[in-house]
């Protein structure tokens, strides 16, 4: 599909607009991420790593799932940015008050138990005024799966970790004789 000029400019403005916005007001140009601050990223990484933990095979962190989420939210799902950010704020507020530390500093057992509550909308409601906990959880879950199992070209599944884990040969053999323009 070709873009006409107007649409092309609009599109560009969209992407750069959100980049500029955050690099100027959050000062996260040093975080190494497109939209997340370092702090936000550590929280999100901890969540993703619980969703697909490392064991004898690598987990979400090693697969670069955070890079996938950061990249795809910027490129394709700008509306998700607020869900991620508000969700992280709510989760951290809860952890600080209840456990006096950040989510990523909790033990694995505590993290899992909080996430199970979040999945079922069972964390105390007062922290979740601006975000729906189950929707936040489901978004993190969905993107983690995509980042871990999807094609590496989208920023996750680094070195084909998930394909190797599932004993799939990748990249696939590619044959000749492809078609082009009906010829």
């Amino acid at each position, binding site marked *: *599909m*070709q873009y*006409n000029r107007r*649409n092309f400019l609009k599109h560009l403005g969209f992407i750069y607009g959100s980049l500029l916005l955050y690099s100027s007001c959050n000062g996260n140009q040093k975080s190494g991420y497109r939209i997340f601050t370092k702090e936000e990223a550590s929280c999100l990484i901890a969540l993703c790593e*619980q*969703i*697909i*933990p490392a*064991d004898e*095979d690598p987990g979400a962190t090693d697969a670069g799932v955070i890079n996938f989420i950061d990249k*795809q939210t910027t490129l*394709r799902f700008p509306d998700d940015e607020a869900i991620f950010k508000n969700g992280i704020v709510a989760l951290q507020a809860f952890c600080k008050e209840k456990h006096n530390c950040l989510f990523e500093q909790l033990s694995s057992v505590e993290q*899992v138990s909080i*996430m199970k509550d979040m*999945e079922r909308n069972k964390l105390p409601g007062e922290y979740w005024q601006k975000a729906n906990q189950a929707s936040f959880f489901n978004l993190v*879950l969905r993107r*983690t*799966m*995509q980042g871990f*199992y*999807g*094609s590496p*070209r*989208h920023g996750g599944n680094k070195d084909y970790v*998930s*394909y190797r*884990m*599932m*004993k*799939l040969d*990748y*990249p*696939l*053999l*590619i*044959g*000749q*004789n*492809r*078609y*082009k*323009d*009906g*010829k």
Partner: protein
Amino acid sequence: MANKHVNVIIVGAGAGGGVIAKELAVNGLSVILFERGEWPVYDKNANDELISQRIQELGNAFGPDWKRNPRVLISPDGKRTTITPANGGYNHNAACVGSGTVSYGGMAWRFMPEDFKLKSIYGHVEGSSLEDWPVTYDDLEPYYEKAEWEIGVSGDETNPFAGPRNRPYPMPAFEYNREARHLSETCKKMGLHPFPIPMLRNSIPYNGRPRCIRNRTCVGFACPVDAKNGTQNTVIPVAMKTGNCEVKTGCMVANIIIDEKGRARGVEYFDSKGNGKTQTADMVVVAGAATETARLLLNSKSKLHPNGAGNNNDWVGRNLQGHVYTGATGLFDFDILDLTGPGATMAICDFNHHNPGLVGGGMLCTEFFQLPYAFTGNRPSGSARWGKEHKDYQRKYYYRSARLHGPVQEIPNFDSRITVDPTVKDYWGIPVAAMSGGRHPLDRDNCIFLSSKAVEILKEAGAVQVWPRGIPGKVSYSPSGGQHQAGTCRMGNDPKTSVVNPFGQIHEIENLFVADGSVLVTNGGFNPVLTIMAIAYRTGEYIVKNFNSIKSS
């Protein structure tokens, strides 16, 4: 500069449109084939599950463009939600030269003789618009054969429930993979009649293209070796070679021009640069698939057809059908998959008809391979969605899970329909399609029945755990459609209760035809594409024979 006048404009270069283009062009008619999408390019999203035509999490490989093509979904309480191809319920197929035939699984089903006369067999069904077709299996048989030979189908004649055929398939059937070998033995032991699925894929070199290398990225993807047969690599290139057919890609047709006398004069469209243009012709054939065809007709208002072309009886857009998929998944304690592509190789038609107490039924077949991301959703309900347990499941069962499922013959109803939204417009400013209504309650009974059969077979095959899938709720309030969308311009003899005649000609507009899934009266218990192609061959032949008389009338 005005475009040169042509004999026939065809809107949509998918299954039906591609076939029509070839039939007309080789018979000397000048044709313009409009397609809103582009030529498919294999390498663009090679092996990319998240941008395949099945998963579409990050985009759909073969269109339509997410941003430009919204639709509206109307809930039972009348609430309208604007949706894109990224959302469920969009009724999505594809938008490129070849459309669904580029990325389909390529199952090449002839409907059964029974499928054309459901009302005669089962009687009137309350709350439905169930009807017999105005054509029979025997009428369509020669055109099925033409589709099988010209597009290319591999298969054999071992399905005892299939209608009679005059000529064998042009290519031998595909060999079973491990899963099908195992399940076919089980089926035979149970007195059922398994057979290899007929496929629009080359089991041997055919038509100048190689044979299938049986990889696992088939359905949802373009074929890496071009062994899958769609209209983009068969009939459309043949049409182009005649010099009579121009394919105009990136062109969105906005409406059909109908003059004061009620004749089609051409179309207005937006070219790939977004410029509005006019193309005139002696005749127009619409083949935009069931949703877009209805939308285009409804958007084509004129003096004699104030509610849209061919819609004076309010039937355009009605009877929208698709296929509820139902079946079961089983887990085994041995590797049952060998990843010999494309996965689906065996089917049974024992339950398509004559099931006590039911209207219709459906085919059951093995499933196309699921790639790792899709497999994360393949779980018995209640199992862990994440954590170590999730990972263990992925590792343990990827090769040990088998699925038997199939499309249930849907019972059409008048209220499952496409209308045009009064306010929402697409990128070009054209009013978009709105989907509303729900499925007939009998679909659920068929699903319960068919999935219980799948459960039985998988258990008998030694599965250690089996669960049914795809059973709709008691009241199923979402319109049907999807990749198998059909029915919105019903074919019939009576102009009061149908949109086109048995040759796809709009009753009230002699030089306007429909040649895609829209004309199907009922959608069979099978994937519909070969039937769509066969009907398009028949309509094409009719147009060629009658072109001069229609033109001069």
